[in-house]
């Protein structure tokens, strides 16, 4: 039962093969028995989960169930959940009980899902390995000595180990897609503005986007149906109708034009990853797609531009953590400045401080043009590259990450080598485009993720293309040993 997809569980619930209470209990037991190995959850909510499951079963008895009614899920601990600790994996919010729900949380609740708990992540979503969490690193279920990726590492590990059938993530530079790749699951970053950012603790506001993390594209479509949509409480929410993302999953992809960016297969890529992706490309050719070489010439500039824009926005967003209104406050402050400085210094971890300082410097008097303005211009070039490419092809395909899951501790002393693990994902955030990572095979017994990128608002197309691949492959059905 635990290895089933959301779509399959939904059918079982509808056919009364299992109740939501039984299903919820099954996952609670799995988490209790197995998560000590992974550390994928920060907070568990078994009591409220069973209560919500009971309500879901009651709704079903009244004939009012939707496709997600009674399905257990987990929320990344960056989404505010009313009455439940929302820590963002930081000491500074270790005592923070959110007074309200994020819109994405509210919407998934309205769709009838059951919240099992809050998943571990990199502190304030700043990291690519889930090692910056105040609550300790998450382990990759495929190899417990390795990282699950990040920042949504807890969600990725939990879904990969079938501790939960679906979870939310957020993606500022690859934080949904890279952990999805390293853990062998499906992770979708929608177009910027597609899912409300209200109640999603801000890291870099012009890049942050929430999305679903699931076993299959079909499940991602089911979750996106519930999560997407206009929200007047988010000033950059896009006011466009939400299609039924499951309706077009089986549309033909005959004649689909796939672009392979030359820059995604060059220096720095693990040859095993490249080989696996090349095999996936052949699979698409068999499905009727045509393959075209394309260029995204400014790819290598995406990381430098990102590491100006994201820290700049983070230094401004994280100014709100001052020890005054919520969160951690230092002991016995002597004056206001001491209160600010010690609360922040004692509350934030090293990587967060590093990014706040880089951002503060980039925005400080005299440096704005050289860093922030320049980075925004590079961002313009990167977006232009993609828009040129989409004149020739329908979708862009490549690896999600240049390497397999790396060892815990391997890159912690070298921020730049850590940053480079997002080389294929960051440009997509800078351009605001949707991207998905799906399992494409294994190398050295570790999962390899394939990334598909489409033009703005073409999530349905991406899910359709991913679904076809999952119909002819079984990588997404594999479970790590012991889970």
């Amino acid at each position, binding site marked *: 039962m635990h290895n089933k997809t959301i779509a399959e569980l939904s059918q079982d619930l509808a056919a009364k093969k299992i109740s939501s209470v039984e299903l919820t209990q099954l996952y609670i037991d799995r988490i209790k028995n197995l998560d000590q190995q992974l550390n994928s959850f920060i907070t568990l909510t078994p009591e409220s989960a069973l209560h919500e499951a009971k309500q879901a079963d009651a709704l079903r008895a009244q004939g009012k169930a939707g496709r997600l009614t009674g399905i257990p899920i987990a929320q990344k601990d960056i989404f505010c959940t009313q009455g439940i600790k929302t820590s963002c994996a930081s000491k500074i919010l270790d005592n923070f009980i959110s007074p309200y729900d994020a819109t994405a949380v509210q919407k998934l609740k309205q769709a009838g899902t059951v919240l099992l708990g809050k998943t571990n992540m990199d502190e304030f979503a700043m990291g690519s390995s889930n090692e910056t969490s105040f609550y300790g690193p998450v382990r990759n279920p495929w190899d417990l000595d390795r990282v699950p990726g990040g920042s949504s590492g807890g969600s990725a590990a939990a879904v990969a180990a079938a501790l939960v059938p679906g979870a939310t993530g957020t993606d500022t530079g690859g934080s949904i897609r890279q952990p999805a790749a390293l853990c062998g699951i499906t992770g979708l970053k929608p177009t910027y503005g597609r899912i409300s950012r209200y109640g999603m603790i801000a890291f870099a506001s012009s890049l942050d986007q929430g999305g679903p993390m699931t076993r299959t594209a079909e499940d991602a479509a089911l979750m996106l149906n519930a999560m997407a949509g206009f929200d007047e409480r988010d000033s950059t929410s896009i006011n466009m109708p939400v299609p039924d993302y499951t309706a077009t999953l089986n549309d033909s992809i005959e004649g689909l034009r796939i672009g392979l960016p030359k820059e995604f297969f060059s220096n720095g890529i693990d040859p095993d990853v490249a080989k696996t992706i090349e095999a996936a490309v052949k699979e698409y050719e068999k499905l009727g797609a045509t393959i075209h070489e394309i260029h995204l010439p400014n790819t290598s500039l995406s990381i430098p531009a990102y590491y100006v824009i994201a820290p700049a926005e983070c230094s401004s967003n994280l100014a709100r953590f001052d020890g005054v*209104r919520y969160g951690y406050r230092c002991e016995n402050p002597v004056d*206001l400045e001491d209160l600010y400085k010690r609360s922040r210094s004692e509350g934030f971890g090293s990587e967060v401080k590093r990014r*706040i300082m*880089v951002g503060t410097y980039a925005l400080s008097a005299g440096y704005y043009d050289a860093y922030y303005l320049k980075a*925004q211009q590079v961002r*313009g070039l990167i977006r232009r590259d993609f828009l040129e490419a989409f004149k020739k092809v329908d979708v862009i395909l490549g690896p999600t990450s240049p390497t397999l899951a790396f060892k815990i501790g391997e890159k912690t002393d070298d921020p730049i080598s850590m940053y480079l693990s997002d080389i294929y994902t960051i440009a997509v955030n800078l351009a605001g485009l949707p991207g998905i990572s799906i399992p494409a095979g294994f190398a050295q017994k570790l999962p390899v993720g394939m990334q598909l990128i489409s033009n703005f608002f073409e999530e349905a197309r991406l899910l359709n293309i991913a679904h076809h691949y999952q119909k002819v492959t079984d990588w997404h059905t594999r479970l790590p040993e012991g889970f």
Partner: protein
Amino acid sequence: MSLTAEDVKKIAHLARLNMSPADIEQFTPKLSSILNFVEQMNKVDTTGVEAVAHSIDATQRLRPDAVTEPDQRKAFQAIAPAVEAGLYLVPKVIEDE
């Protein structure tokens, strides 16, 4: 760009972070290497390229100037470190006469 310990001290103050001498020693080379890395951007000529702040060229929406938020002071102050009579408490800012 190579930062000095003095630069790092100044940035830390602007960011309202405390830095011990040991922190400064650790942060200085790492911040310098990040800045050197991002300066790769200078390889490309961006003369005349528009700066993109928001990937989708959306403009801010306007709404009628009406009260829309309910009063949630109690809920919000329940999670504050120190409050009294509906006010947030901080160390004394104004000196006695």
